[in-house]
């Protein structure tokens, strides 16, 4: 499980996160919601080591990962499907997926059944199977999102970070993304989900945190947040 205590992060001299604490217990789905610019992606980037936290403590399965480089954090069992998908455009779909399992294929993570997992990813995302030899750069946005998620899953992670998996997708594909998140949840995968569709995110999550200007303003079980008048007003659309 993932534990974050009093995380501060800054871009240059501008502090963006002013002390965030959150917890992602094993087997649970936790969502982080908030408006644009609240610091959701920055939180994700600080957790996975893409940026160095200014202070605070991050621990994964009880091991301190604060200040580690992103590749070491990945080897410790944290997979991050980043905002904007960031697939490897000039590599094939299969190669992208295999790179997700890089620590398992080289060193740092138990190898397990990489071939079997690849097959299972293709079962979960049949569209990727159809395009296994195609270059990732030629996929549609929805397919790239599936690939980014599949690639992160190939690590066999202890914790999976999903940053805006529905961003820029057509409504049908957004539904498909949430169907997959629910499927992953039923398989017991521990997830931290950042989403713009707060209502959908709270529907799938067990627990939620609301991020406002770099602070956690409210947190609680997802059911409770859904019924919180302030949260409804700000993020779920008061009319509903």
């Amino acid at each position, binding site marked *: 499980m993932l534990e974050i205590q009093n995380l501060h992060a800054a871009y240059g001299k501008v502090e963006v996160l002013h002390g965030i604490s959150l917890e992602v217990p094993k087997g649970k789905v936790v969502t982080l919601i908030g408006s644009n610019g609240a610091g959701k992606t920055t939180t994700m980037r600080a957790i996975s080591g893409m940026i160095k936290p200014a202070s605070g403590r991050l621990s994964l399965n009880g091991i301190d990962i604060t200040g580690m480089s992103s590749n070491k954090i990945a080897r410790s069992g944290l997979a991050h499907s980043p905002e904007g998908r960031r697939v*490897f455009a000039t*590599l094939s779909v299969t190669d992208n997926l*295999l*790179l997700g399992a890089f620590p398992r294929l*080289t060193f740092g993570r138990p190898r397990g059944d990489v071939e079997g997992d690849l097959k299972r990813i293709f079962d979960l995302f049949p569209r990727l199977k159809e395009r296994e030899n195609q270059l990732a750069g030629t996929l549609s946005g929805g397919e790239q999102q599936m690939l980014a998620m599949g690639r992160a899953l190939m690590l066999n992670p202890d914790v999976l970070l999903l940053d805006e998996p529905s961003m820029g997708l057509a409504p049908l594909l957004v539904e498909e993304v949430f169907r997959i998140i629910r499927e992953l949840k039923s398989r017991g995968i521990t997830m931290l989900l950042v989403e713009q569709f707060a209502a959908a995110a709270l529907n799938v999550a067990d627990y939620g945190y609301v991020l406002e200007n770099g602070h956690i303003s409210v947190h609680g079980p997802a059911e409770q947040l859904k019924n919180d008048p302030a949260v409804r007003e700000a993020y779920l659309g008061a009319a509903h």
Partner: protein
Amino acid sequence: MEILAQLIVSGIALGMIYAVIAFGYQLTFATSSTLNFGQGEALMLGALVGLSLVGYMNYWLMIPLVLIFGAMQGVFVERVAVLPALKTKSEFGWIMTTISLAIIFKNVAENIWGRDDLTFPSPLPTSPLQFFGIRVLPMEILVVFGALAIMLAVEIFNRKSIYGKAVVATSNDRDAAGLMGINTGMVITFSYALSSMTAAFAGVLVAPLTLTGATMGVVLGLKAFAVAIIGGLNSGMGVIVGGLLLGIAETTTGYYISTGYKDVPGLFLLLLVLAIKPAGMFGKSVIKKV
């Protein structure tokens, strides 16, 4: 006609050397967007170390040792000149540092091997073979196939092995590659090792055909840089075509016009490419997101 064919054949051997050095520029540019402006010096050091080694062993045994030396030299360049610049996020610091190191290497070589040009004993017979009246040195054939072989080997490594794919992933998106558990810093160091290794290999290939000495790398490195720009810094095909064009342009101009003008068509081509298609003849223009 026979003369023209002869000039083209000689141009091809020369062009393939340019292509290999240019290929080395591409290797580091792909992973780190930096270049070793001492690529010519890496070639020169490879040739001179090879020359010293052939005193003790035969040419073929010497090649793997020179490859190892080249790789170590590349790691040294990356650690000393490039890594500090990348760490401080200095956009252009690496240009000055790699040029400085190149000058230092040249001076060190002058101190060790002297300022005079040396002759590199040819491992193959020096009498030319005749094909339809065209004379080809066995060493020229070795240059062409050796150059193709090393480029092909790197390409196969990149496509087939998981470590090679990690290199390609790093070239695609360094941050995302880090998220895959790839130590991208190591990948950049590795690309420098590989880059200098190919240059050192080019050095021992070309040395028996030319004069070997501390200054041999300056012009070769510069012309190969032109080839990398002409062909495109991200196109494998581009450096071969660019290298051959430049090589053939040089030999033909040297014969039909004057050896004094032999570098003109290449530089003219460089200007033309920069004016019309700055990404290179085969280069893909990359739109940098900000």
